[in-house]
């Protein structure tokens, strides 16, 4: 049996499971309360910083998880507490994968396919009236991560985000 530990943190559950010596799998389970998201984000940032991600990568990965979990709470669960949102982090020597699960109202998968960071009508706009107030979350995730896939089946929704670890550069100078 794989070693496993679990910790309760202010309504959050945090479980680490050693999948193999080279792969770490950690589960976070939070209640669908927006106040829980920052704690989750900061925890994932710390885990990324223990891998070989740069400070800016850690910030960006935290941002994408915060966006994904906030979407689950705001849209899938209509901002209502009392539902579980789970994030499974899998860290391998090559990459990090973050699976965000909820059991709320599914998102139309086209929203992720069609999400953009900058809409064509905003391309040259410096006028705040020409800029969307919201709707940047999915575009940010697609821009920052190397992969983003959304699936909805059997009453559950899963958004999978993946980012490769930076390749180690070999300095040829003596």
């Amino acid at each position, binding site marked *: 049996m794989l070693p496993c530990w679990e910790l309760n943190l202010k309504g959050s559950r945090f479980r680490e499971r050693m999948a193999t010596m080279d792969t770490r799998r950690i589960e976070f389970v939070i209640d669908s309360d927006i106040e829980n998201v*920052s704690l989750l*984000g900061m925890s994932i940032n710390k885990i990324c910083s223990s891998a070989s991600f740069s400070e800016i990568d850690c910030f960006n990965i935290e941002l994408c998880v*915060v966006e994904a979990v906030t979407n689950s709470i705001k849209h899938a669960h209509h901002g209502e507490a009392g539902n579980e949102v789970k994030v499974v982090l899998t860290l391998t020597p090559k990459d990090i994968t973050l699976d965000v699960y909820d059991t709320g109202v599914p998102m139309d998968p086209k929203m992720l396919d069609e999400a953009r960071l900058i809409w064509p009508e905003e391309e040259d706009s410096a006028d705040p009236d020409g800029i969307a107030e919201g709707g940047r979350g999915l575009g940010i995730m697609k821009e920052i991560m190397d992969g983003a896939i959304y699936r909805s089946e059997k009453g559950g929704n899963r958004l999978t985000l993946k980012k490769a670890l930076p390749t180690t550069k070999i300095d040829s100078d003596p």
Partner: protein
Amino acid sequence: MKMEIIGEKIGEVEVLKLKGRLDASSAKDFKDRINSLVTGNSDKIVIDMEKVDFIDSSGLGSLVSSLRSVNKSGGDIKISSLQNQVRAIFELTRLHRVFGIYEDNNAAAISF
């Protein structure tokens, strides 16, 4: 993880010093604070983000919403002292072209 908002003045310019995370949990408090300034006829506002170490799309949305609100009353919002990672998100989303961004509060205040 509540964000702190401390209000100060440089001449007739209102300076809001933010501390913490500007995200979905703090965006409403921030917009409420801006709306109370607009209601009080303050329309020259500097947002000091030196101590904001995280911003997400909800936080960015609250800034855009606030800018629209202040613009409608004939005023403007300037942003100062962005941390590097937060500045990178402004640039990624191109909001650095929508807001006046300055190195410090005095530079932002005299730009009005």
